[in-house]
């Protein structure tokens, strides 16, 4: 599909498809490069899924789970995803912790979300604090990982953001032009941007049509990510839960913020801040003082907060 909306706007070519349980989109400035860009994105996501999925029995992550308690040599992509996840955990004081695998499965998110939605609400299970990222051992020399027995990892948000960053860079390099990659609303851009930058809509759901978004912002480089509590949600017993887990309780985070968006030098950098802010709840504004990213936070009552230069403007 080629998008042409205004004679003054650049002509951009967009391709979208389903992958890793969400909608994957690539946007390029050269329509002739769109097919090639789509193929590169699909290949990157297939590689990510094979390395990091906690739903695929044949993923490398499942090998790590099956050998918990022992050191396991893993591929470069999984090792990088683990390194990024542990870095995120350390920088957020454990708010974004990859050892939530058992907790999120106990909440019922143990399969692709479409499957979770299709079955009746599961009965509540006992919840508790997760093991903690500090117990995951990485050895870069041998490219091995060791997790404690009984621990399962969920690389969810950081791995998706990492995939967006890697894919955007690979595509921009491959087509020798600018590219935007969006994985369910986690956006990475690389290469030269179009005039005025890459326009990204901000809305509570990434499926919101362009004309109904809350705000449109432009980024020139790096990434933009959003985390929300009202979507990617399901029922446990008679209560609704969502996919962002508080590692201290093992439970779905109480939704103080309904949407947090951030920019960063990469999609990973942005994603770390948005996920952590959801976990931090009302303490997020203070915690964000230690970060450089521009952040937009929408509170449960609709009030919008801007941190570090995110532009506040009347909605479109």
């Amino acid at each position, binding site marked *: 599909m080629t*998008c042409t*909306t*205004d004679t003054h706007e650049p002509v951009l070519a*967009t391709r979208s498809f389903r992958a890793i349980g969400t909608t994957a*989109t690539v*946007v390029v400035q050269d329509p002739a490069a769109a097919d090639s860009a789509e193929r590169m994105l699909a290949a990157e996501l297939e590689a990510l899924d094979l390395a990091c999925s906690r739903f695929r029995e044949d993923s490398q992550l499942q090998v790590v789970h099956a050998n918990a308690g022992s050191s396991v040599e893993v591929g470069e992509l999984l090792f990088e995803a683990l390194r990024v996840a542990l870095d995120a955990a350390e*920088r*957020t*004081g454990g708010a974004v912790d990859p050892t939530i695998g058992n907790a999120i499965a106990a909440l019922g998110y143990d399969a692709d*979300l479409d499957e979770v939605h299709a079955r009746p609400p599961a009965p509540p299970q006992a919840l508790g604090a997760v093991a903690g990222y500090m117990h995951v051992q990485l050895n870069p020399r041998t490219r091995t990982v060791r997790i404690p027995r009984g621990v399962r990892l969920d690389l969810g948000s950081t791995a998706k953001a990492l995939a967006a960053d890697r894919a955007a860079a690979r595509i921009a390099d491959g087509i020798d032009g600018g590219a935007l990659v969006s*994985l369910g*609303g986690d956006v990475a851009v690389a290469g030269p941007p179009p005039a*005025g*930058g890459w*326009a*990204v*809509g*901000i809305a*509570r*759901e*990434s*499926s919101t049509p*362009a004309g109904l*978004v809350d705000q*449109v*912002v*432009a980024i020139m480089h790096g990434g*933009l990510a*959003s985390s*929300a*509590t*009202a*979507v*990617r949600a399901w029922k446990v017993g008679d209560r609704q839960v969502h996919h962002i887990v508080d590692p201290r309780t093992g439970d779905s985070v109480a939704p103080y913020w309904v*949407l947090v*968006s951030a*920019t960063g*030098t990469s999609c990973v950098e942005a994603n770390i801040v948005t996920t952590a802010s959801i976990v931090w709840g*009302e303490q997020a504004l*203070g*915690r964000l*003082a*230690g*970060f*450089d*990213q*521009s952040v937009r936070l929408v509170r449960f009552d*609709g009030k*919008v*907060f*801007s*941190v*570090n*230069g*995110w*532009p*506040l*403007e*009347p*909605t479109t």
Partner: protein
Amino acid sequence: MSPIDQPNTPENRDKARSRLRTLTRGAIFAATGATVVIGVVVSRDHPGAGSTGKGAGATTPGSSGSVSTSTGSGSSSSSSSNTGSTGNTGNTGSSSSSPSISQSTPTVTSGGSSR
């Protein structure tokens, strides 16, 4: 030479006043500098007054960076500290990766990912 040995002439009185002005300016300058140093130390050590450390473990709940708010409808905006803010963290500028408002039609939307 001791001042007491100097004759009480108009010229010597002018020199003495000039010396006194110099000493006074120096004392004021030193006091101001000391105040600034104390302020910096306090802002670094006092929780909520100046934490700029990286990562959650180093930041201070209740303090804030450059925080602005607007209504959910976006019809107005104002700058204010959030409830519970206890001081400026020194993180007052825009980020190097700050977005800008765009009038273009977005090609993608960033938000919660339901599917």
